[in-house]
């Protein structure tokens, strides 16, 4: 469905996307995971024909993104990171104009609008100007608009950024349904680990314009080693209690108990506990994509953003004065 070959975009001295080779299959949900500024949006913008690559090439739905831009655009839908819905129109008008632009048959427009408005929970506010919407409502309208023409390939650029947990769940549910019902190929960028983990078939970790690692979420996690199990028991227990088990990668004494690194802990937990005398406390921390990200980029995904760093920056500026 999507093939890129050495796709590169430079803005002056900055290389935003650095020679990405990628292949996405039909019907796949593919997540690009990376911190802000990793090049995710630029990469997607190139695939959507919004930005011309500096070098390299890509085909989307079999069409070249540079020479067959219009044909590419006929096959795609996109939900932008920053809402691009029209402030001066109502929600319904936004959807209507979108349907007209995308050649949705006229007799289907009204029905689809009602369905999408209900899906994103905007039916009651549909006739108010978007200018009066909250940030979350704009995003939901944006999502409704990206989906309403039922594209073969859907790009979701940080689709749930700034959404409350309820709306986020609703969006996830809809993405899953869409894929199941229509076989839509979905490319999703996110910096939420849970999102990449729970929605996608494959995840690419992207950092500084390059793909660092690619595979299913489980594959990536298994590369880290395994889950962490903390055991506290009545009396003493030594690491030797678990010797000979191939799924126990490591066992060390820590915090008055034993810390084990275990591949797929939920599956083996019972077997582990059976080997212990009276258990006082068990903690299992599953390996997350956070750990994966840390391992492959040497950084935490949230290092470069969030309130913490803003406050730090303010503090630094303040101190300099």
């Amino acid at each position, binding site marked *: 469905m999507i093939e890129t070959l050495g796709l590169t975009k430079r803005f002056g001295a900055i290389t935003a996307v650095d020679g990405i080779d990628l292949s996405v299959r039909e019907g796949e949900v593919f997540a690009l995971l990376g911190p802000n500024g990793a090049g995710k949006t630029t990469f997607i*913008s190139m695939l*959507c*024909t*919004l*930005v*011309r690559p500096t070098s390299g090439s890509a085909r989307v739905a079999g069409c070249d993104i540079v020479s067959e831009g*219009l044909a590419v*655009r*006929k096959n*795609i839908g*996109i939900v*932008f990171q*920053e*809402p*691009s*819905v*029209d*402030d*001066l*129109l109502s929600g319904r*008008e936004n959807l209507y*104009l*979108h349907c*007209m*632009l*995308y*050649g949705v*048959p006229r007799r289907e427009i009204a029905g689809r609008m009602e369905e999408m408005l209900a899906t994103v929970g905007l039916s009651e506010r549909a006739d108010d100007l978007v200018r009066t919407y909250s940030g979350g409502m704009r995003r939901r309208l944006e999502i409704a*608009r990206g989906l309403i023409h039922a594209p073969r390939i859907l790009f979701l650029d940080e689709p749930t950024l700034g959404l409350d947990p309820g709306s986020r769940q609703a969006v996830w549910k809809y993405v899953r349904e869409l894929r199941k019902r229509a076989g839509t190929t979905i490319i999703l960028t996110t910096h939420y680990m849970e999102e990449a983990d729970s929605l996608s078939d494959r995840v690419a970790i992207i950092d500084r314009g390059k793909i660092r690692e690619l595979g299913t979420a489980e594959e990536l996690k298994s590369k880290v080693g395994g889950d962490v199990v903390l055991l506290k028991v009545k009396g003493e227990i030594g690491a030797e209690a678990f010797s000979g088990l191939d799924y126990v990668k490591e066992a060390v004494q820590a915090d008055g108990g034993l810390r084990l690194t275990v591949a797929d802990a939920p599956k083996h937990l019972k077997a582990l506990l059976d080997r212990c005398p009276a258990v006082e406390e068990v903690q299992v921390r599953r390996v997350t994509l956070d750990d994966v990200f840390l391992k492959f980029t040497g950084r935490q995904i949230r290092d470069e953003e969030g309130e913490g760093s803003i406050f730090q920056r303010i503090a630094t500026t303040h101190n300099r004065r």
Partner: protein
Amino acid sequence: MSDLHSGLNAVYALLLREIKIYFREKERIIAVLVSPLLFLFVMGRGLAGHSPAPGYDYQQFIFPGILCMVILFTSITYGLYIIWDKRLDFLKEVLVAPISRSTLFLGKALGGMIGSTAEAIILLLIGAALILPLGPIRIAVAALLSMLFSFLLVNIGLGIGARMNSMEGFGLVMSFLTWPMFFFGGALFDLSQSGRALRLAAYCNPFTYCVDLMRRVLLGWSVLPAGVDLAAVLLFCAVTAAWGIVSFGALQQTK
């Protein structure tokens, strides 16, 4: 669905958006008319210069030019507004739509044309009531010409807007293009009586032919034959539309 059909649908959608937005911003409709009315009533009455058109006073003489001025400023401003659209992401939505850049250009240009023409018609009616008595046929012809001039001038605005990336350029275009076009277009004076350099500048200026043709229609007086004016306007329309479409072809997201 055929390409032509979907193209027409897209143009209709773009047009509809502009019309809806235009009539929602009522303050703007009024605001645009302030400076032309100042020109007409303060300069036209106060200056009370010489009118070369027999039977008409100076205020009446400059009225067709001021009518064109409204079209000029509304159209160029509208066109340049896509710089703003580019930054605010509204344009992204249409840039990823399955429509060709020429369709997008046409939709935008026609949308702008409607806005400018509406302003022109308002001023035309004010003028007909207070300054220059006009029959319904003259008003109708002037309205049609306003559409044509709007198209020409919107093309210029859109073409420039598509190539500029910052709103700071807005003021520059207004100072170095729009105002000179207005002053060198002979809206306030008789071109045939002016110096050679001024006339040369005027004849390179598409706005000159607009003013001259409008004067022919409203006052029955013009420097050039009406046919020459109309041919020049049509030629400029074709050239600017082609240039605008090329500019839109290169249009990319700014951020």
